[in-house]
């Protein structure tokens, strides 16, 4: 009997379209798998079983009548619980919005619906998208499907875990400092943080308007290309959504690698030996595909990090002010702590940080990116830690805080710069947890990043590895 949940999104979409399998059968298979894994992972905040099956029946009727909605017809997805759907609760992973019913539908959700996708429910996340680990005191921590004692990465924790565990065929996440890429790397899936403005943010709970990016997490680069092609593009409801043409990302996957120039940092401080080894092997695989490796120099990342932090804290403080005044006790400590500095930074510093964003980006493109097509970096600097050692809420201390501070070292700078960054699996660490590599490109070069990532996935099989459910083991 075929295990349809082991297929990737593109294959399942074709199987449904061709009539090999019904959307109802696929949806039921996903729901059964979710039921088995949920006690271990806590990847879902809400499972919309009845609605998903009703939609699946409708998709099957449509298909039988020769009416296909689009390239995701009948394909089950789920999304981080921050993408609003009118009339449905959207918690944002928070106590404050535990019962809040959305008054609008996110543009990205409308586009996925129009393409025919099924929505299985809402996925766990860090509270208000503010946390790099996946801890959540309101809905319970999300756990890594490779080892439930370890973090999933965040804040799109449920998105990373559910895609990795083959519960869904793809998921949306958001990324303000690494929140798509970190869970993608840690859970062993593909995550794209597109160029700032590539994807509409309308109807997505904000973390920081200037640095928020919306993007997909999937099992493969090809899957990711399909989802981005559907959600990208201008949106009259989001003035920051770019009108830049959306290319056919899937058609561009077969681009030849010969002659492409990939930047390799001359020094990569602060990454552990296992991560460096995996990255070096990835570099070798890409060289064998014909990619030319060019030594480049990264700028000091700390100024970029601090400029991004200034912007995030000020914007988050402004947007949360009413609740922080009226119900501060309903925030977790670590989410409240991360915003408080925003109330104390002078407005002129915030504005200067925004002005500096242009200078930092120009300088990066003119120096580090000069003469190369893309840049190869690690996504995470170290092996995946445990949930216990990074639980700053329950065990605040210098060690946990020090680990958290290093999480987004290689991701947050690219939120400031707004450049597209793709994380994909490139190996496993000594504990058997996935390692991710990051490809960074020029503005709106997602197609190129996808082409490189797809070529790499044709000669490697890290992305085909999936975690196994261990009977009798529930999340600690």
């Amino acid at each position, binding site marked *: 009997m075929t295990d349809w949940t082991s297929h990737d999104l593109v294959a399942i979409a074709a199987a449904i379209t061709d009539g090999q399998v019904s959307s109802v059968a696929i949806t039921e298979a996903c729901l059964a798998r979710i039921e088995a894994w949920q006690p271990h992972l806590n990847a879902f905040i809400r499972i919309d079983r009845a609605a998903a099956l009703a939609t699946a029946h409708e998709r099957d009727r449509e298909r039988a009548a020769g009416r296909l909605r689009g390239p995701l017809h009948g394909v089950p997805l789920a999304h981080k619980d921050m993408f609003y759907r009118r009339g449905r609760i959207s918690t944002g992973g928070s106590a404050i919005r535990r019962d809040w019913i959305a008054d609008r539908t996110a543009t990205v959700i409308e586009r996925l619906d129009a393409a025919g996708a099924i929505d299985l429910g809402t996925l766990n996340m860090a509270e208000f998208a503010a946390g790099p680990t996946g801890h959540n005191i309101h809905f319970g921590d999300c756990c890594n499907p490779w080892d439930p004692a370890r973090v999933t990465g965040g804040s799109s924790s449920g998105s990373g875990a559910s895609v990795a565990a083959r519960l869904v065929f793809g998921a949306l996440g958001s990324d303000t400092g690494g929140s798509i890429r970190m869970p993608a790397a840690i859970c062993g899936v593909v995550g794209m943080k597109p160029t700032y403005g590539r994807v509409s943010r309308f109807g997505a709970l904000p973390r920081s308007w200037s640095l928020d990016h919306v993007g997909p997490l999937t099992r493969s680069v090809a899957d990711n290309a399909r989802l981005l092609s559907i959600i990208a593009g201008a949106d009259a409801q989001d003035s920051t959504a770019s009108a830049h043409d959306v290319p056919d990302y899937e058609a561009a996957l077969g681009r030849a690698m010969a002659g492409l120039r990939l930047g390799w940092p001359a020094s990569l401080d602060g990454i552990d030996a296992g991560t460096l080894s995996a990255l070096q092997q990835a570099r070798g695989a890409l060289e064998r595909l014909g990619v030319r490796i060019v030594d480049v120099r990264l700028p000091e990342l700390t100024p970029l990090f601090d*400029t991004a932090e200034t912007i995030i804290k000020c914007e988050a403080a402004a947007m949360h002010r009413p609740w922080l005044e009226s119900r501060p006790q309903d925030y977790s400590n670590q989410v409240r*702590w991360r915003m*408080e500095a925003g109330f*104390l*930074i002078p407005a002129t*510093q915030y504005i*200067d940080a925004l002005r500096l964003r242009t200078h930092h*980006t120009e300088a990066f493109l003119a120096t580090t990116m000069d003469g190369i097509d893309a840049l190869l970096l690690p996504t995470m600097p170290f092996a995946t830690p445990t949930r216990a050692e990074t639980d700053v809420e329950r065990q605040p201390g210098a060690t946990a805080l020090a680990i958290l501070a290093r999480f987004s070292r290689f991701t947050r700078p690219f939120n400031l710069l707004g450049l597209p960054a793709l994380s994909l699996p490139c190996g496993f660490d000594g504990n058997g947890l996935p390692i991710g590599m990051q490809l960074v490109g*020029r503005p709106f*070069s997602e197609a190129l990043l996808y082409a490189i990532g797809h070529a790499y996935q044709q000669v490697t099989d890290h992305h085909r590895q999936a975690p196994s459910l261990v009977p009798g083991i529930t999340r600690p």
Partner: protein
Amino acid sequence: MKDRATLIADIASDLQGIRLPPARATDLAAEVSRLNDAVRAATGQLSFDDDPAAYAALLAKASSS
């Protein structure tokens, strides 16, 4: 002259209506100083006409396709 933590606590209270415990005020004073200093250190490269909205135009201009 007030120490930095006291200053931060007073600003939080008087200007933002936020009451900070002393230990928290100390931590925030260090954090705000670090971020403040980072931005101020870089502002030498800013000119009078640098507009925050220039960033979107830069992305569009710098695209490779």
